[in-house]
């Protein structure tokens, strides 16, 4: 999937949550992406993040770093929150 589109979508999500303060916004954005993004979308944006993450808003970077896919031992064992 095109990183540009995913970056745009992730930033859009971040911009809704950012009014709640940095910590809540990162948590809210991460939760949203885990709940609604299909794994290949998450994998693609994490790859983009690891490649420098051009274009990602700061709060979105924080959020993405919390996704299980971003961890070194990334796998699908960890289910998203309910």
């Amino acid at each position, binding site marked *: 999937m095109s990183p540009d589109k995913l970056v745009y*979508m992730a930033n859009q999500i971040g*911009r*809704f949550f950012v*009014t709640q303060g940095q910590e809540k916004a990162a948590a809210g954005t991460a939760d949203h992406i885990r709940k609604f993004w299909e794994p290949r*979308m998450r994998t693609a944006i994490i790859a983009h993040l690891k490649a420098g993450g051009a274009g990602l808003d700061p709060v979105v970077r924080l959020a993405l770093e919390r996704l299980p896919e971003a961890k070194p031992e990334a796998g*699908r064992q960890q289910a998203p929150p309910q």
Partner: protein
Amino acid sequence: MSLVQEPTTRTLVREIDYGTPRSKAEKTVTLSIDGRQISVPEGTSIMRAAMEAGIEIPKLCATDMLEAFGSCRLCLVEIEGRAGTPASCTTPVADGMVVHTKSERLDRIRKGVMELYVSDHPVDTLDRAKHPDVDLLATAAAVGLEDVRYGFDGARHRNPGIDESNPYFSFDPAKCIVCSRCVRACEEVQGTFALTVSGRGFDSIIAAGMDEKFIESECVSCGACVQACPTGSLIEKAVIEQGKPEWSEVTTCGYCGVGCAFKAEMRGDQVVRMVPYKDGKANRGHSCVKGRFAWGYANHKERILKPMLREKITEPWREVSWEEAIARVASEFKRIQAKYGRSSIGAITSSRCTDEETFLVQKLVRAAFGNNNVDTCARVCHSPTGYGLSTTFGTSAGTQDFDSVEHTDVAIVMGANPTDAHPVFASRLKKRLRQGAKLIVIDPRRIDLVRSPHIEAAYHLPILPGTNVAILTALAHVIVTEGLIKEQFVRERCEWDAFQDWAAFVAEERNSPEAVAKATGVPAEDIRGAARLYATGGNGAIYYGLGVTEHSQGSTAVMALANLAMATGNVGRPGVGVNPMRGQNNVQGSCDMGSFPHEFSGYRHIANDAVRAMFEAAWGKTLDNEPGLRINNMLDAACDGSFKALYIQGEDILQSDPNTHHVAAGLAAMECVVSQDLFLNETANYAHVFLPGSTFLEKDGTYINAERRIQLVRKVVEPKAGYADWEITCLISEAMGYPMRYNHPSEIMDEIARLTPTFAGVSFKRIEELGSIQWPCNEKAPEGTPVMHMNGFVRGKGRFMVTEYIATDEKVGPRYPLLLTTGRILSQYNVGAQTRRTANVVWHEEDRLEIHPHDAEERGIRDGDWVKLASRAGETTLRARITERVAPGVIYTTFHHPNTQANVVTTDYADWATSCPEYKVTAVQVSPSNGPTEWQEQYNELVRKSRRVAATVEAAE
């Protein structure tokens, strides 16, 4: 496969006409009618009281859909202690009253009245066998008329001739007795005021508009007048052509989210007419032109009745057997999964199909495909409603029933055009407005509700497209800063901390009406006035449509509406609430049934282990716990090469989804597209397999309307192509190695009820008993839930959300200086696949571009000129209509016709939370044009080629 039992008795469903409407009084009075003691609510007419006791008083001008009028003088009765013979329809009951409905004197008067009516009627005898089409003779016989002393050749009333201008009904003035039931139906039931009585006395006659033909008048062809006519003067042309119906079944309309109940009236296996069912709790006996008349598509010659295949989309179609078609689908899906992985295929459920059919498609995906790549057209309409209302209230559902509007004092209608898109609800709203309720319209266009006969909005806030969140936050600003909060409600029912955060945010000066006036284009004083009216005007109800959801901030705007309702205490009782106007007949149901890629039926996330375990146990399969792809993600993934096959049930994504070029590219990149539909729709141009579907007349099942009301759809015709849509899904699943076996859709609903707590009490039998059920329906609410959040929100405490306005990135500039917004009109429905194949095209044969005279003049465009409409995404041509309904800078069109393809110009921008496309804001330029664009020419060629069906060669013996 179908073991559906034929109805044992095929008779006409007859509804009792009580003559006058039900009284809502709580006090009862007792009277005597023909020696029987009868107790009825105060305010009931004698006519109704008698009928409720089974005593039928003859009548012509009275019917229980309309207020009593007292003109026909047939329903006269005698009341002890009162002089004369009062009309029973206009005389209310009183305690101790003694009424006689039969006497020699009454007999004589009634015969005398009937004699006069008949003497002016186009008959030469009272013999009903000689005039089977003259309904008045039945009434004459009922009052015992045996002779007409004046003869049959006296003077007749004025008769300008039969008006056959309407495609669906005709008006024969000769049979008219000027009882004015049609005039009153047009006023009281429909609220259009198109009919009147012209002339006086013997010269009087019913007239449409200013003595025009029906088709030329402001008549909207709802048919209420036809239904009201007691003499057959106004009558469906189908009844004249096919004869009177012989049997009927009650069913549910397959058009919009209002969910009107109809009697499908049949003759043999042919539908003669659809008559709105008075016990239908959504429509209360009313309908619009689509539901009542526009069902002819079911028999249209372009319907595909045989499965078809082709290797490549450039080849002509080849008709094949069901076995071959299903085997191809299964083998292709299996081949593709083996080659590209389990997640390379998916499906789209239909908001036009039944709950049971939708449930099976998502079951097919989750259990047989082994992934969660399922989505539905709600993605592109009301997905933000799901997200926004779940976040604030705790569940994705409108809060009220339609009856609630009868208790509303102030209605906000935002981004919805009910008179066109939800006409029967609009009629009910207009009735309430005529009784004195106030209206606030928030819409870029001056929709009909802003000002129409006997209706005028207190405020019309004509916002610039894309500024919904700004104006809603400004309304909240006024409510908070002027101290109009219902603090007790908020303290008791909502999260107080979240409220305080929200209140502090909206109170900021940058959110004041004065600060947002420029961005929204609405004067600050109007915003203040509207906020005060909503907060202090009594019961405040919000009704909203896709003008709220189809934006980059769609979900935020839904939350902003929920915030307003909570802040003013307008949730949890009749007359208030937050009500999404659902577009398609079963868009609510398709969402409820688990059509979204992240959740099971009843809105439970697929990562919830307990819920998933329940489904795994029931379905005997391990299910994926990761969310699947949404429609737009599927198309992106297809362009990237990781998504290769799609099963589409009853959905035309090529025409209905935004940025047609992108949709086309995604579909073209797939190796197997399966389209299941009635017609070769636009999406089918890219399909490899076509499976012919069935109409709502051809199957059993349920639909769920915008009020969460579950209603039965009943089969009246056998599936023309052999199978109901749910059976086709079962065939595919079986061929893929996962048999799903059901004898009847009721068994599917039983499974839904077992697996979905909010449907636990639902079954076909229970729906039949109750007429309809609004979910949640379970132990706590065994008869369903008309109004939600009565004793607290579903999520516990209501949650205020901060709604920061973020302008869309789709911006006007020198190249694209105008804002395009899209919508629909009354006579056409969605992509038009059905309505374009009916006589409804007489009202709307093409999409038109509405443009303000100022913008038109600047560009040298005259009314009716061909113009080119161009955006960053694409361009198309259509004809202009110059109108002040749109503001300068804003233009509008519909998306009903594939040769316009309005979605060629709409963009990829979408709601931040749900990816619902931003249909309502596109920056465009409009310029004079000579003819179709290159895209339109290429597309027409593609359509021509892709609809070819190879000549069938008969196999040699």
